């Protein structure tokens, strides 16, 4: 028996809640069971078999919330075969255990440390240069990309089962990720220029440069190992001090 398309759509919707009850014992186990439950209800008319199938999916699970959709899809692919008596009951679990680690690493490496920071930096640049319309445009674009990939991974998992690995490999995500990170670094540099230009326009160039000098000190402390929050407070205080010094040196004379 095949799971109907409407049920698959329902499962995908529920995949968006994969981390709703993230816990240290089973991590996303509750989210996984919640997501796959509509498919299990379709596949197992016998309440005992459904209960047993749900128990399988209440065991430990942890993956990236986007790439986890591929595993939910793949688990349905295997459960269809289990329900039809073509596969052993342990195979959906083997599939999950084998793929959750690699897909979590790919998801963290691409979505969390590359795509999202890139769009964050892009929208920050847009907000500084053009205001809120750039933020709206960035959000629409990010979600078009992220949702398209999330849906594609879910369907690839469902249609291809274990072969979803080759589908993910074909996307060359690690190569794209490296380029996105460097793009984000460049955008952060351009943001700094805009911050300085806006500061100079609001206060005069010497005072903006004094702020920049304070930021450089704070950044140096951060690069040398100071934690983010102490570095933020030190930078803000140094900014006030540098501005005071600049006012005395450049605007009031020696």
């Amino acid at each position, binding site marked *: 028996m095949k799971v109907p398309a409407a049920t698959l759509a329902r499962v995908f919707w529920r995949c968006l809640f994969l981390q709703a009850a*993230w816990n240290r014992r089973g991590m996303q186990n*509750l989210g996984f069971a919640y997501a796959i439950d509509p498919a299990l209800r379709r596949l197992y008319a016998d309440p005992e078999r459904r209960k047993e199938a749900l128990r399988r999916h209440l065991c430990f699970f942890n993956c990236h919330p986007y790439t986890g959709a591929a595993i939910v899809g793949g688990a349905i692919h295997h459960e269809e075969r289990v329900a039809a008596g073509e596969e052993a009951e342990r195979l959906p679990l083997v599939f999950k255990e084998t793929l959750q680690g690699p897909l979590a690493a790919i998801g963290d490496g691409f979505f969390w440390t590359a795509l999202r920071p890139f769009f964050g930096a892009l929208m920050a640049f847009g907000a*500084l240069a053009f205001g809120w319309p750039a933020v709206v445009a960035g*959000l629409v674009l990010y979600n078009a990309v992220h*949702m398209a990939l999330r849906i594609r991974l879910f369907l690839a998992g469902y249609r291809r089962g274990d072969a979803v690995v080759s589908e993910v490999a074909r996307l060359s995500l690690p190569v794209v990720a490296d380029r996105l990170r460097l793009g984000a670094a460049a955008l952060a540099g351009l943001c700094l220029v805009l911050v300085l230009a806006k500061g100079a326009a609001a206060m005069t160039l010497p005072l903006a440069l004094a702020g920049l000098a304070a930021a450089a000190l704070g950044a140096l402390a951060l690069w040398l190992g100071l934690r983010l929050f102490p570095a933020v407070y030190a930078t803000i205080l140094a900014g006030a001090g540098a501005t005071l010094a600049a006012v005395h040196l450049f605007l009031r004379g020696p």
Partner: protein
Amino acid sequence: MTLDYLLLGIIAGLAAVERKGFLQAMLSRPIALAPATGLVLGDPQGGVLLAAPLELLWLGAVNLGAALPAHEALGASAIAGAAVLAGRALGTGVTPAVAILAVLICAPLALLGRKADGLVERVNERLARRADALLAQGNPRAAVRENLYGLFLPFAISFVLAPLGASVAAAAIPALLRRFPGGEWLLSGSWVAFGAFACAAAAKALRAGRAPAVFLGAVGAGLAVALLLARHGP
């Protein structure tokens, strides 16, 4: 005023849910949340002023595996809410001085939020155990529904903490700026320092060996273009 704090609590709570429990579509990132908070409280431009530096400051705040990052959504909503409400009380809107004081007072909420995330995870363990018990009792529908109850606590924590932090800051900021009127200039310098620092912090947070060189190269190229534009006009 009560309605403002209620709206701030709701938007902070929804952002806390979107951040981890549902969707993760960047709607709870500071770049989206600060303008949204400003919009809800009647000053979208004030929120936009804060959005870019806060996003860059917390660009590295990502939920990798079991690691808990700073709660950037709680921090951003409290900071934006405090700045808008303080700016309104002063009659100036969100100025750089108001914004930097809001950061100084409310940023630690992001660390408190991280602690609260640990508490949420422990409470969710109970939900997982209850789901096991419900399934054993033959109630699979109720067992899987336990997942949705996990959304309540993150919402409630941010619903309470964001307006609380914002109310303290919104009371303190006007009082401070009225008492030290010259402080406005000094804090404007701090705002430039904070914005530039956030850009450098973003470059550091990117996990790429060549990121610092690319960052500095972009700064150099951008400054060169800015100087050319300043000399010859756009």
